Every structure is written in C-alpha cells, then in structure tokens.
C-alpha cells in the first residue's frame, strides 16, 4: 500500500507521457507539438538567415551561396558535383517535406501518412505503374553515367541536410502528421518526375468518347468532336512547310475500338478534371525595342503551398543559369542563361490508351493477343497503413501495361479508367534521359544546343519555347510521341489485335517545330498543335479552347518595339475573347424579349470584355456561359453519365451558323421543342437567380474576384490555415491571365535576351520557404496578384557584388 501511494504519480506520469508523445487518429502528438522546445514554436522563424558556415561531408570543394532579398539562393560551386550537391542541400533546407510528399503520392504511399482514406488513391497510383517506372528508369541509369553522378550528388546534398536535423527541426507538416523524412535517392527524383508526368499527361477521354460513340455513333462523334477545332489558331502557324521526309503512317484497322461490355458503370462518375493551361511565347528582335528576342512563360498549375517552383541561380565552371526548378529534380526547369532562354507549356498528347484484355480464365495468367495466349506478369504490392496494418494487392500486367481495375466500382479512384482494360502510358517508358534535356538547356548556348537538348526528352510532352541572343526564336511541341494511325486511342482499343498496339514512335526530329517564322513570334497556350494539312502524324484530337492562344497571337501580331513590360502586360491580359465571341449573338436574343433584368443586361452591354478583379459583368458572363453550355449539351451528353460535352468553339459555331440545330432541343421534354432562344432566356434567368441567391441582390459582392475566389491551398487540403483565400485578382479559365479558383500562373517569367547580359523578371505565387512559420512562405503572393514581376538577380560570377544580397553561406568540405 505504501509503495502504491509512493508510486502512483510515477505511473500516471509515464502513462501521460506515452499518450501525449504519440498521435491518435487525426490528433497529433500534443506533447511533442506543444512543447516549446520541440514543437511548432521551433518552426516560427525568428532569424530568416541560413547558418553562415557549414561543414558537410561529401563536398569536394568550398561552395558559396548568396541569398538575395527574397531569399533566393545564388550558388557558386567549383565543380558540377558540388553544384548539384549544394542544390540538393539548399532546396531540401526549404522544401524537404514537399519534395518527399510528391514522391509518396507517386509511389502510392500516402496511406503511411494519412491512413486508410488514401488507399483508393494509392492503389490507383501504384497500379498505374509510376513506382515501377521510377525503378525501371533508375535501373537503366548506368546508360547515362554523367546524369547518374548528377542525381547522386543531388541526393547526397539532400541527405547531408537531413543528417543535420533532429526531430525539433522537422518541418511542421511532419510534426502535425507524425512521421519522419526518409533518405533521398535518385529513385525519389524519378518519382517526382513521375508525379509531373501524371499531373500533365495523366488524363484520358478514351472511355468517355467510346461511350459516346456507343450511344450516338461515329457520325455524331465526327460532327461534334472533330480532330481539329472549328476555330483554330495552332502553335505551328498554318501553312508552315514540312521540313522532313515523313515515315509511313500505320494503316487504320477495320475496327478502331473495343466497346466495354458493362454499360451500367454510369453511376456517380466525376467530370473530366480541369484543364491545365499554360502560356509561353517569344518575340523576334524585329518586334522588340532592343532588337533582340524577348521570351515569356507562365505555366498554369494547381496553385499550392509550398510553392510548386523554387527559384535559384546555379553556377559552376560549366554552367551559369537562373530560373525555377521543381523541388526534387536537379537543374533548372524553366529559365535562362547568358545566351538563351526557354520555357514550357503542356502539350497534352494522347499518350495514355486502354486495351480491352481477354483473359483465358479468372486466374488471369494468360491473355489473348495476336492469335495466341500470352503470359501476364504479376507483382505483389503492399500498402502500409498509418497504424501499421498492411493491405496486399496483386498487380497484373500485359505487354500493353497494367490492368488497373477488374471491376467497375464507385470506390475506384479514377472513374475514367474502364475495368478489364490494360493501360498503355508513356509514363511507363524507362528511358533515363529525360533530365538531360533540362541540364542541356541549362548550359545551351544556341539554337543547335536547344535542339540537341530536346532530343533527350520523353514525358510529359511540353511545348518548348526558345529564344537566343543570336536572334533566333523557336517552339517545339516535344516529347516521345507514339506513331499512331489516325484517331488511334481516341477510343478504347482492342487488346487482342496486334494492329491496335503502338507501332513505334515519331522520330524526335520530326516533332512539330517552327523556327524564326515570318510573323516574328512563336507562341503556345495548349491549343491545337498543328493543322492536319501541315503535319503527317496524329498526336491528339482534343486541345484547350482557342481563346488564350488566339488572344496572345492577336497581341503579339500587333506588337512593335516590345519590351519586357509589354510582355508582362500580355501575361496579365484579362480580355475575354469568349465574351467578344459569345455575347453579341446572345445579347441580341436576350434583347428581343422583355426582361426584368435590364440592369444586369446593361452591365453586360457596357462591359469592355475584361475579366478585371472589380468588374461585375464577368461574374454574370462566366456564370451564364457555364449554365448555357450545360443547357445545350447536358441533356444529350449528361456529364454524370461519364459523357463529355462538345467544345465551346463548336457550340459557338452552332449558335452563329446553325441556330436551328436539333442540339438545342431539350430531349428530356417530350412534348416541347426548345430553341436556342429558349435556352438563352432560361439560362440567363437561372444565372441571375443563382447570383442573387449566392451573393445577394446586385452589389459589390458581385465583383469578379469575389465570385471567382482564387485561392492557394496547402498540399494537405485540411490545412486551410496554411492556405491563402480570396485573392484580389482578375482572370479566368478562358483568359490569358488564367487564374481560377484553384489554378493559375504558377511562375511568371519574362527574359530580355542581350548580347552582353540578359535582363529578366519573374515571380511565383508563394515564396521560397516551405515553412508556414516563415515570412518567405507567401511573401510573393501579393505582388503576384497585382501582376507585378520582380527583376531577377542574375550574377555574372561569384565576385560580382549586389546590394540585393542579404546573406552569405559557405559550405565547406569536411576533411
């Protein structure tokens, strides 16, 4: 009894320490998190400067890092090994959690962090083969010894940073979610690249198009979903000459699709994911005030914290380059050096196809292909849940690729993947040369170097825009593109037929390309790549609506004596071509009948078609156009039945040239034939009702930025407090300044090429630090929302001084 009396506080203490030291479900380890010496207070940045001197093992020589006022590192190394080592070290010190998070997503390992609710997502990612592809690329790295060394140096740098950490130094996200960083490796860099391939080339409309063909037949498909848009202003100017002798295109088989048997999958299926848009262009010297080219790029991605991009300058005896890089990958992804500048936008070619597999029996050991039974390969995947439990999954692969789902289920993560089909995806390509493209561009001196660098690139295919101080401009939709018969993979394919297989690739030097065109500018905005008249190969049928591309081309065509500021103003162009095209015919119909909404109609009539932040008209127009498009198409092509709507330019074409079209009739009303006029009037009433309901009667609450609601969200959606909402900016998804609720220009850059030394401007929505407790987490959001650019500090060499350098860091090799 006496012992018990003496012992109870100790027992209670140990029990409480145990409870408070571990996380329980979604409740973090409170003891660790709230202890001021180990928990979140340690992440509240009291000194923004990095340590002045560090001694690191693995470095060969001393590295100097200069930090400017936005805490952008300018790295000066004496050899390439140390350069990429220091890049890895530096970026890890700001972004390690984010880098690792992407790799966990691509590897299908989120369950380890958040538990079972991520299982369906993980299973999709794992089954679609990104983890396996990353392993296959790494296995072939010996073919590229220089690249291998670069990747290893980078990984060593990241790991040198991790070695300096104790638990209290971990980024906040690790502390809240209760896990620890793992060592970095070249495989993790490849997983990071796989994540980009998935983000940018991971979509497919094959299932939707097949269902559509099944329901309405090929004539309707060809009429409403043509391979080349009605209103096209392609990346390769129409009429550009073909500069190569094309390979023979494979013959189109007698049957081009394999319909799914199960037609009952149309339950609660999600819409296609939002389009990822980006802009880039370059004007020739003849259009610029300096007489030399100016290049601009703004890739649009999901706006997220920590920022997608990380700015840095990388200098060694072999390279001096500035730009933005992807955390986890060595080198600069979008940037410039003394002689050249380059940028990228997404091509979005059809590089993901699905093959219907005929298995011999339920063991799925063999499948029928090319008149014989062929063996499948099986692989066991293990998912570890947060509580330590495991889930086992068997992955079945054919020569096409993995079979993602065997049954259609509402629990499947990706509803656009049909059950019983194998996925053929460029992401599975194990060629290890991808990063040589960017490393080559980093050191490129001229157009020939640019072409050589591009030849290494696999995926995700990008429109690489280029400008040099030798007065060359060029653009190349580039990547490893399958050589297809026309429309191959527009629909689901037949996995038993050899003629449905991919039959080789378009040679890299036969990718679409234009250099120094007569019009003195090159540009891309995810629009259609090239007219079928000017190019022999099929790349894809679908592309972004023509608004951004056409508007950019209009601005650039009219430009003379252009400067960096003129290009900045194009990046921030809020002009709505959609409004210019749609509104006149729609307003004409609206004004023909009496309306109680004269005030709202007047707002539209007096609008200058600019989606500026404080305008009210864009709120009406953007709401209206969405409702109108839905009313025209959703009766025949219900999006909740996994069907898709025809393009906006096709709809406009009908409104203007075929207003009596049968497609305007609502097939759900049996006794009535609706007309375009009915749709216009009812959709407008519905628009105003909807705005009234959500934002009250017309007032300043209708201002576009309040309706559009652009926000930058933390990668963990539940961490709202680490996010920024209600950003006061203009733009829209049909606008060159493509800021929407969750998407937008993730990095804006403008480079004026120069014989002596280039001048460049840029910024991204966020900041260099990934730490929500640092002022450099979101310091660039405000200037970004105003459309400002910061002059980028590009130092000539280690000796050049600048008053913008705030801090110095020296990394020394340990003896």
């Amino acid at each position, binding site marked *: 009894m006496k*012992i018990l*009396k*003496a*012992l*109870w*506080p*100790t027992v*209670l*203490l140990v029990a*409480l*320490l145990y409870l*408070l*030291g571990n996380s329980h479900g979604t409740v*973090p380890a*409170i*003891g*660790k998190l*709230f*202890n*001021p*010496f*180990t*928990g*979140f*207070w340690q*992440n*509240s*940045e*009291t*000194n*923004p400067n990095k340590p002045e001197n560090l001694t690191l093992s693995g470095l060969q020589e001393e590295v100097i890092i200069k930090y400017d006022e936005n805490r952008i590192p300018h790295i000066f190394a004496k050899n390439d090994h140390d350069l990429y080592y220091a890049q890895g070290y530096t970026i890890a010190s700001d972004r390690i959690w984010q880098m690792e998070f992407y790799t966990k997503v691509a590897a299908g390992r989120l369950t380890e962090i958040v538990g079972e609710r991520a299982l369906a997502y993980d299973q999709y990612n794992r089954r679609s083969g990104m983890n396996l592809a990353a392993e296959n690329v790494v296995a072939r790295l010996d073919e590229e010894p220089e690249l291998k060394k670069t990747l290893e140096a980078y990984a060593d740098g990241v790991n040198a940073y991790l070695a300096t950490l104790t*638990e209290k130094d971990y980024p906040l996200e690790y502390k*809240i979610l209760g896990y620890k960083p793992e060592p970095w490796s070249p495989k993790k860099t490849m997983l990071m690249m796989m994540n980009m391939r998935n983000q940018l080339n991971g979509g497919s409309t094959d299932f939707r198009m097949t269902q559509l063909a099944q329901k309405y037949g090929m004539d309707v498909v060809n009429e409403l979903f043509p391979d080349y848009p009605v209103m096209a202003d392609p990346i390769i100017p129409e009429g550009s000459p073909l500069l190569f002798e094309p390979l023979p295109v494979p013959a189109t088989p007698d049957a081009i699709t394999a319909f799914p048997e199960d037609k009952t999958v149309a339950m609660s299926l999600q819409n296609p994911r939002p389009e990822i848009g980006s802009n880039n262009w370059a004007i020739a010297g003849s259009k610029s005030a300096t007489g030399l080219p100016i290049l601009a790029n703004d890739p649009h991605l999901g706006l997220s914290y920590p920022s997608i991009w990380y700015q840095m300058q990388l200098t060694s005896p072999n390279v001096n380059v500035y730009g933005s890089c992807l955390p986890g990958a060595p080198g600069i992804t979008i940037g410039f050096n003394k002689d050249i500048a380059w940028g990228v936008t997404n091509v979005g070619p059809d590089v993901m196809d699905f093959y219907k597999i005929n298995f011999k029996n339920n063991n799925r050991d063999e499948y029928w292909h090319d008149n014989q039974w062929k063996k499948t390969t099986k692989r066991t995947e293990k998912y570890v849940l947060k509580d330590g439990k495991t889930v086992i999954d068997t992955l079945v692969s054919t020569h096409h690729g993995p079979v993602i789902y065997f049954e259609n289920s509402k629990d499947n993560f990706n509803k656009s993947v049909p059950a019983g089909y194998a996925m053929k995806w460029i992401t599975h390509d194990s060629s290890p040369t991808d990063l040589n493209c960017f490393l080559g561009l980093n050191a490129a001196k001229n157009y020939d170097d640019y072409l050589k660098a591009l030849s290494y690139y696999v995926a995700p295919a990008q429109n690489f825009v280029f400008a040099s101080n030798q007065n060359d401009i060029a653009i190349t939709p580039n990547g490893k593109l399958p050589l297809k018969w026309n429309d191959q993979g527009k629909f689901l394919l037949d996995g038993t037929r050899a003629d449905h297989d991919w039959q080789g690739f378009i040679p890299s030097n036969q990718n679409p390309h234009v250099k120094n065109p007569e019009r003195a500018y090159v540009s891309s905005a995810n629009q259609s790549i090239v007219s079928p008249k000017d190019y022999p190969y099929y790349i894809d049928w679908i592309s972004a609506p023509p608004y951004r591309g056409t508007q950019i081309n209009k601005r650039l065509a009219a430009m003379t004596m252009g400067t960096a500021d003129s290009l900045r103003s194009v990046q921030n162009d809020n002009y709505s071509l959609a409004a210019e095209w749609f509104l006149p015919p729609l307003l004409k119909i609206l004004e023909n009948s009496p309306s109680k909404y004269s005030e709202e109609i007047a707002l539209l009539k007096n609008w200058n078609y600019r989606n500026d932040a404080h305008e009210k008209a864009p709120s009406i127009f953007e709401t209206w156009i969405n409702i109108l498009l839905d009313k025209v198409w959703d009766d025949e092509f219900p999006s909740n039945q996994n069907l898709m709507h025809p393009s906006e330019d096709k709809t406009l074409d009908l409104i203007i040239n075929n207003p009596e079209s049968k497609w305007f009739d609502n097939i759900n009303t049996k006794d009535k034939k609706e007309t375009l006029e009915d749709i216009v009037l009812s959709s407008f009433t519905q628009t105003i009702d909807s705005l009234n309901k959500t934002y009250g009667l017309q007032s300043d609450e209708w201002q576009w930025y309040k309706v559009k609601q652009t926000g930058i969200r933390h990668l963990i959606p*539940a*961490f*709202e*407090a*680490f*996010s920024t*909402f209600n950003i006061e900016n203009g733009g829209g998804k049909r606008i060159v300044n493509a800021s929407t609720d969750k998407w937008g220009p993730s990095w804006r850059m403008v480079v004026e090429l120069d014989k002596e030394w280039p001048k460049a401007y840029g910024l991204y929505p966020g900041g260099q630090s990934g730490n*929500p*407790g*640092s*002022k450099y*987490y979101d310091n660039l959001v405000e200037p970004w929302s105003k459309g400002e650019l910061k002059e980028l500090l590009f130092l000539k060499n280690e000796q050049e001084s600048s008053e913008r350098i705030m801090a110095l860091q020296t990394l020394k090799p340990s003896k």
Partner: protein
Amino acid sequence: MIYLIILIVGAIVSVFGPWWIAAPLAFIVCRWKATSAKQAFGQSTAALLTLWLVYISYVFIKSDVNLVNKMMGVLSSSSEGFGTPVNVIVILAITSILAIIIGGLGGLAGYKLRKI
C-alpha cells in the same frame, strides 16, 4: 532552490533533449531536494512555466508570422482558429497543462519516491 535549479538546468537540457526531458529533471531534483509534495509539485510547475512562457514570448515577438493563429486553424480545421486572443489563450492553456504534467507531476513523482 528547486525552482532555480529546474529553471536553469531545464533551459540547458531542453535545447538538446527530447520533449519529455523536463520530467526526469524535475523528478531527480525533487527526489533530492523537495521537502513536501506541495513544494515539489508547485515549484517544478512554476519553473517549467516560467521557462516556457519566457521562451514562447520571445519567439512570438521575434517572429514575422503569427504561427499561433495558423496552428490553431489547423488544429480546429478552420482558416484562422478562433481569432488571435482566443487562440493565444487556448495555446497558453494547453502549454500550461503540459507544464503541469511534465514539471509538476514529474516533481511530485520524484518526491513521492524519495523514501524508496
């Protein structure tokens, strides 16, 4: 005396030690020095509270970012928690409870075991 020892030694070991390091410290100091349960519990709690509150105040004042609001937002699944004043009070309350457990209970446990 107990107060001072835990305050000074606590400040040093907290920089390097794990989150629970002050508990064994209070335990040892009270097993060695404390003369009553009340004293062990009270002075250990007070020492740890002093150390933590001074440190928190320093960090809070020196930081450019109000991480208290962000943390409370994350913990309450909202964008800003309950507004700065309430957030600060909640954080201080949790911190104090933690100081009572680690410091107070640690000291009391040490004192109670001094005869064994």
